[in-house]
């Protein structure tokens, strides 16, 4: 390819600040006269607030105190519905729900003060699991505890059962997962009647926070300004909750007239903020003896927590991905997101897809076993092919060859030889068993269905006084490489050096709304907008005559400066336009669910120690087709990081619940992989440029979260001969079914 910047791996834009320790995260920022805020939270899962007492021993007159009555306008965190209060008003629906806010100049005084606020409750019955919620014996939300449901139908499933040689059923479950970004949530707010409200924060989506604060405060849009600080990891966990923290800081700032910082510590962040939705998925599949999938009925249930937040969209993605990368002539998928009295579950890398893909990829191995067929063979016989349609009826128009993808992954993993070798070795009695397993999957890039059309994103480019090109987007950097990728795209489109492009500040008063930084949409969708804005900028300069057809970066700077001198400003904008011929039916969940899918086959090799049931992942091959790889180092880093999170979700990361409250809200007790728990992660790309993405890019960020859990559990089944269908899978969940062959000896 002839590109000069795209496809290369220039140094991360903000990298130098990060390695020198001068990158400014929210807790690194301190404003003159700033005071500190803290949150009083509910100690019960569900109840009526009878009263709030302030115990003696605290100088209460020194504290700024905010309750729901101090909220100027709407007491809600604006997302899809309007049910999520900013501060509980009379009723609490989950443990750790914010009730009251305190602020004081001495941050060390706050924990004691929080503990000295005694909230009296009349406890109400609560539900904590999908099973309890769906029984509807206790209604905790709406009339039936259901936040959202979908029914997706293709073909005639009921007819498929009759044709089937075999019907295979299975039930699969996944647990909550904590994002565990290394930087906790935090925000600083400043308010004055003259300047309006400004909130700095660790966040993914500046305009989400903006929208929410406008509703909360009733201030005009232009009087609310949101600025993203350097953000130390997010993974979806800073999509919705920063609106809450930002709102809290704002309320305290408005009441006190002082800058207010709220910085969560780890325990509060883990206990109070969102997690991945726990799920339960049931499969019933009609299949022929030679392994042709005839039809399926899939039933998905998500635990959404106490408020609806993003559950509807998470459920939507779970639903669309539930069939996996296979051709289903007939399928019916019913899905529901249920309310429970846990803190709301939210966005987390993959956004519902990891849950339903775990189920289908475990289920495929079950079907293969039931047929006496190898798992790769069953997949081979059912992979989606060009011209066929997905479960939503979306036709595959790209030159998709999943069989080839799988064969390459299996070859990279030395799958066939290893499988035979492990079968041989496992037959000998030993305390270590080895296994190898695979998962094949897909991940839709960008917002679902009409989502991108509704977002109506706008990106812009301008030039600085020095004549440097500047990317203006609300897409944020939190480690994935947004800054770098978008600057690469802009540089490529402008025909100038990467170093000559910079990012505008992630500040709602400066940049247009490019939509949220979620859904693997930044490279593909926003990148395309930046590409076209850059083209616009270039055309303007060329048309002005200040730049000739052939130019260097220095020529560009000069031309830009001259343009500014002559015309005052140089700016180019680009707004999202849906590709033609794309149809989506929101009611029937039919049509083009995503502009593009990324495709992947992952292979995991494991050792199971029969003495402890400890599972070690020994090798991991991750092969994917993500369109054009814009930056190989960043792309590889995304895959490796996602695989590590997937390994964590599969084998280590268990949220221990007690009546809706996370019990292990410490890094010591919520276990993520260390350097010594990660196998070699071998990343491979197939590149098939996607026409509607920036320089052929599709989405990449979420994809690697989907494959590890099923690949690993499939490998464990191969190693032990025991089928496990739930993650996280800890030794404690395995040992009862793993027999240690210890001779029985009668006592003498």
């Amino acid at each position: 390819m002839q590109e000069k910047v795209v496809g290369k791996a220039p140094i991360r834009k903000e990298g130098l600040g990060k390695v020198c320790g001068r990158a400014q995260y929210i807790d690194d920022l301190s404003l003159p006269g700033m005071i500190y805020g803290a949150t009083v939270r509910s100690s019960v899962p569900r109840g009526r607030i009878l009263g709030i007492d302030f115990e003696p021993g605290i100088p209460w007159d020194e504290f700024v105190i905010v309750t729901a009555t101090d909220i100027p306008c709407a007491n809600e965190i604006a997302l899809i519905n309007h049910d999520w209060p900013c501060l509980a008003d009379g009723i609490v629906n989950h443990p750790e729900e914010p009730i009251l806010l305190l602020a004081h100049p001495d941050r060390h005084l706050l924990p004691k003060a929080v503990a000295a606020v005694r909230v009296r409750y009349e406890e109400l019955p609560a539900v904590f699991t999908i099973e309890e919620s769906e029984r509807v014996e206790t209604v905790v939300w709406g009339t039936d505890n259901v936040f959202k449901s979908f029914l997706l139908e293709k073909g005639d499933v009921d007819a498929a059962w009759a044709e089937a040689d075999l019907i295979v059923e299975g039930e699969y479950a996944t647990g909550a997962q904590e994002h565990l970004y290394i930087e906790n949530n935090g925000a600083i707010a400043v308010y004055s009647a003259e300047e309006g409200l400004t909130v700095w924060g660790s966040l993914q989506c500046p305009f989400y926070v903006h929208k929410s604060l406008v509703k909360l405060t009733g201030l005009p849009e232009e009087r609310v300004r949101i600025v993203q600080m350097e953000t130390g990891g997010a993974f979806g966990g800073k999509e919705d909750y920063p609106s809450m923290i930002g709102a809290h800081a704002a309320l305290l700032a408005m009441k006190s007239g002082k800058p207010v910082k709220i910085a969560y510590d780890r325990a509060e962040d883990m206990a109070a903020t969102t997690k991945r939705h726990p799920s339960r998925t049931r499969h019933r599949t009609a299949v022929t003896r030679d392994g042709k999938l005839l039809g399926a009925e899939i039933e998905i249930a998500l635990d959404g927590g106490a408020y609806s937040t993003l559950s509807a969209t998470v459920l939507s993605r779970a639903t669309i991905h539930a069939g996996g990368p296979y051709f289903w002539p007939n399928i019916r998928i019913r899905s529901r997101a249920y309310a429970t009295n846990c803190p709301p579950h939210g966005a987390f890398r993959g956004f519902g897809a990891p849950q339903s893909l775990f189920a289908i990829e475990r289920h495929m191995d079950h079907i293969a076993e039931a047929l006496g067929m190898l798992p790769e063979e069953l997949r081979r016989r059912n992979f989606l092919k060009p011209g066929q349609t997905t479960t939503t009826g979306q036709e595959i128009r790209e030159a998709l060859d999943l069989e080839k993808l799988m064969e390459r992954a299996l070859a990279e993993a030395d799958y066939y030889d290893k499988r035979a070798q492990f079968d041989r070795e496992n037959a000998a009695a030993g305390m270590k068993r080895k296994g190898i397993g695979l998962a094949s999957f897909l991940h839709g890039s960008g917002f679902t269905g009409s989502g991108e059309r509704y977002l109506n994103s706008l990106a812009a480019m301008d030039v600085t006084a020095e004549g440097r090109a500047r990317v203006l987007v609300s897409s944020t950097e939190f480690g994935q490489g947004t800054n770098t990728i978008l600057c690469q795209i802009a540089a490529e489109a402008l025909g100038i050096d990467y170093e000559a492009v910079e990012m505008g500040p992630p500040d709602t008063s400066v940049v247009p709304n490019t939509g949220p930084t979620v859904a693997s949409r930044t490279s593909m969708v926003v990148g395309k907008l930046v590409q076209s804005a850059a083209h616009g900028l270039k055309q303007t300069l060329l048309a002005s005559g200040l730049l000739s057809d052939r130019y260097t970066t220095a020529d560009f700077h000069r031309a830009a400066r001259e343009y500014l001198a002559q015309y005052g400003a140089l700016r180019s904008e680009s707004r999202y336009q849906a590709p033609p011929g794309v149809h989506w039916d929101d009611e029937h969940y039919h049509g083009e669910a995503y502009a593009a899918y990324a495709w992947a086959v992952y292979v995991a090799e494991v050792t199971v120690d029969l003495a402890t049931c400890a599972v070690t992942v020994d090798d991991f091959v991750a092969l994917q087709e993500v369109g054009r790889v814009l930056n190989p180092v960043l792309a590889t880093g995304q895959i490796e990081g996602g695989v590590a999170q997937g390994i964590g979700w599969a084998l280590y990361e268990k949220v221990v619940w007690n009546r809706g409250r996370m019990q292990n809200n410490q890094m010591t007790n919520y276990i993520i992989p260390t350097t010594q728990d990660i196998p070699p992660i071998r990343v491979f790309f197939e590149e098939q440029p996607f026409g509607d993405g920036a320089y052929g890019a599709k989405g990449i960020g979420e994809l690697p979260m989907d494959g590890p859990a099923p690949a690993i559990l499939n490998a464990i089944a191969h190693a032990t001969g025991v089928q496990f269908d739930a993650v996280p899978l800890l030794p404690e969940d395995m040992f009862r079914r793993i027999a240690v062959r210890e001779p029985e000896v009668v006592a003498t």
Partner: protein
Amino acid sequence: MNPQRYRLRVNGDVRTVETHGMARLLDVLRFDLRLTGTKEGCGEGECGACSVLMNGDLVNSCLVPVAQAEGTTIETVEGLGNDERLHAVQRAFLECGGAQCGMCTPGMLVATAHLLKKNPQPDLEAIREGLNGNLCRCTGYTRIFEAVERAVSLAGEERA
């Protein structure tokens, strides 16, 4: 209790702070000395984001009461190198994609510098062990291992 005066040599400079003996070294660095490069991730010695060198030894600064740091020599990420003159590990992390969100990075860099001082030619196992107290949620560690290996060769080039 009244605050007391504590003296530390931080990144080469003698600094005096007036604070409480149980104040965490981490807070002394971040709040009193405004060296915010050192990060807090967990506050319980688990994540290593607050790693600094104390008398040359890697420690979690969140677990050091300043009274125990009295008279010691402290090195933080800010002391490793700067924009003009990067330490080999900083260069290597930049080049290999070892830093993503950047939050574990300062601690990871300090831990790497410590590892390479103790073992200038670590193999992969030694790298894994040397960094096992520094949690990263972005990279899956693979870019970091590569960066450490690159740092070894960069350090070799610098010596040559």
